[in-house]
């Protein structure tokens, strides 16, 4: 299958889109600041103190996190779908995001994260790793679509229940309200501290997955052929699992679980890159970033003062898409 758009052109267009949306994210917010004012404040700091504060400490971290988390979700979605050769594989559907939430919740509400900030992303990614292994264990090595999704549902609901339990047990009456945040995700009022905490892990995860391109291409021919082509499957598994867990774990620990981006984006990009998993990785990362940035802008425009959760929006778009995907897969299987 040949790509309808040249690969470099596609990547260029996606990068431009991400750049535009990044700027859009910086310019969107409840505080009315003029276009030039905000850019001057952001770049040179030559504006009133309050405007500089808003731009550099509130909007910039939000935009950076939107870009990085979206890219992580898109990239891991593409990697998981390629590695498991399963069109429905996605961090949120497989319970990886929900488990990472659980890890983050344990770190924050026990007070561990206050003493040792690094424990937050680390516990989240540990929980994410465990989730991947449990799903693999439950689904078995054959990993047909239905079993894998069932295993993911089981892990998601278990992790969700444990998160709710941990939050309900907290003596802090506000903790129980935060169940919504951990299940639906939000980027509201994040700070640069969150960026410094999560971005190294997300970058590390990207590195691990970036090296998978050739192996994923070979895997489309089946495991036996891939092995005969010199692909070390154990190494591929380790990189895919740890890369996903590290980047999604870190992302979730600061934003909560955001669903469906990892599912939709690879499917949208696949026809555009000619269904080559190695090319899908970069395209999905960029498209994921664009989608999350767009969703985060939309959330702020739709209801500026209620802090609508991003997961609500992604689910509104993602759930119908998911249904369509199920129907399509069933047809092609039959």
């Amino acid at each position, binding site marked *: 299958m040949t790509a309808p758009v040249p690969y470099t052109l596609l990547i260029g267009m996606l990068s431009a889109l991400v750049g535009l949306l990044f700027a859009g994210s910086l310019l969107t917010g409840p505080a009315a600041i003029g276009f030039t004012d905000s850019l001057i404040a952001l770049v040179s700091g030559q504006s009133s103190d309050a405007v500089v504060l*808003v731009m550099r400490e509130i909007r910039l971290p939000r935009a950076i996190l939107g870009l990085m988390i979206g890219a992580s979700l898109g990239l891991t979605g593409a990697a998981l779908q390629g590695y498991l050769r399963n069109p429905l594989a996605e961090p949120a559907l497989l319970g990886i995001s929900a488990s990472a939430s659980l890890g983050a919740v344990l770190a924050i509400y026990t007070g561990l994260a206050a003493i040792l900030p690094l424990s937050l992303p680390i516990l989240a990614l540990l929980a994410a790793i465990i989730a991947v292994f449990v799903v693999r264990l439950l689904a078995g090595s054959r990993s047909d679509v239905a079993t894998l999704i069932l295993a993911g549902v089981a892990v998601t609901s278990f992790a969700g229940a444990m998160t709710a339990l941990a939050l309900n047990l907290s003596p802090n009456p506000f903790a129980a309200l935060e169940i919504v945040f951990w299940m639906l995700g939000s980027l509201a009022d994040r700070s640069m501290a969150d960026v410094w905490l999560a971005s190294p892990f997300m970058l590390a995860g990207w590195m691990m997955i970036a090296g998978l391109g050739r192996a994923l291409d070979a895997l489309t021919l089946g495991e036996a052929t891939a092995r005969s082509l010199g692909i070390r499957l154990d190494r591929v598994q380790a990189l895919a699992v740890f890369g996903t867990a590290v980047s999604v774990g870190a992302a979730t620990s600061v934003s909560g679980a955001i669903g469906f981006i990892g599912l939709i984006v690879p499917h949208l990009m696949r026809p555009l890159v000619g269904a080559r998993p190695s090319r899908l990785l970069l395209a999905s990362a960029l498209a994921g970033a664009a989608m999350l940035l767009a969703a985060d802008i939309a959330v702020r425009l739709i209801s500026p003062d209620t802090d609508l959760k991003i997961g609500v929006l992604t689910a509104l778009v993602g759930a119908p898409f998911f249904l369509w995907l199920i129907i399509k897969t069933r047809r092609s299987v039959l």
Partner: protein
Amino acid sequence: MSPIPRAGCALERMSVVATPSVNEARADRWIPTQGRQAITSTDCHRRRANVLRRALQELTLQRDRLRSRPLNPAAKGKLVPARRVNAFHISLGALRSTRLALLASTFSFLLVSAVSPGAAPTQGEGASPPRRVVSMNLCTDQLAMMIAAPGQLYSVSSLARDPAMSLMANQARAFRPNHGLAEEVFSMQPDLILVGSMTTRATVAMLKRLGFPVVELPFETSFDDMRANIRLMGEVLHQTDRANRLIEQFDADLNRLQQVQAPRRTAVLLHPHSYTSGTGTLANEILNAARYDNVAERLGLSSVSKLPLEQLVLAAPDLVVTDSAWEEAPALAQKTFSHPALLALEATSAKAVSATNRWICATPQLIDLIADLSKAGRVGNKSSMSSAGSGTRQ
């Protein structure tokens, strides 16, 4: 045994397998026919509405009550008439979807409780003062402790002993604690129950059905509401003089604080989760009384609503008041308090950390909070307004 329409119960028995036998055994043993008619049907009804635990509680209560004394005719009239409930049951029998049935039965429960007469606590002028008062709400606890005569108040809620929430934690130790459960309040056999409008609705409804006089103090959103509640408390406790003295003292103190000549400044309250109090809240009235213009009010926010950090930073108020509650149990809710943007705001604004227990209840003790607030930010740049201890103003 009089014929009891069983349609609703039959349906319910299919969905709940284990409990009915236990219930029926108890009902057979302890409840005479007339009582059972009412209880069994209410019971089925409510169990289907997924309040199984409470229904069992009620049954136990009824049993104990019937054991300890003869059924009093006044209370009997307040039980829900069986036939009215069963009309709903039969129509519900058609609903097969569990969720629909749940919704519908919850709804019809509301209807039924609206139909059944509540125990109206009419305290006539000539009636004798209550001698065994149980308060079930943190705020009624504190007002009652200030107004009740010695020996009149029997129990206050366990929250009143918690120094994180109550300003009278020490005084509260003199009374038996209750945890807002119908069963324990029932066993105290009070002759007056004080609740707030936020007190667990199901419990309050049950206590009313059981025939206890319940007085509900409305939620206060202004000093006028507070004065009205103090007056009401004085009336139901037959201590109008004490209540009036409290109000007079508060008004005098408030007047004195208002005399201070100082320019009005701006302030904002920042609660956990970036919430703030705007127009129509008691907190807003407190800020105004302390000669502050509430930034939330200026931004057009009413009641308790979200204040985006961006808007707070741009408004740059003279004083930011944050909560200090539950610092030992971390949650994301309090993360805003340590956001770099807010910390940077301290360069231009004063910041006051105030104990939550000072803001919760509308009592005359608010005067100390108002005094502290009007001093905050004037003396130094930072000030901490911790709990005012447990001093009571009599």
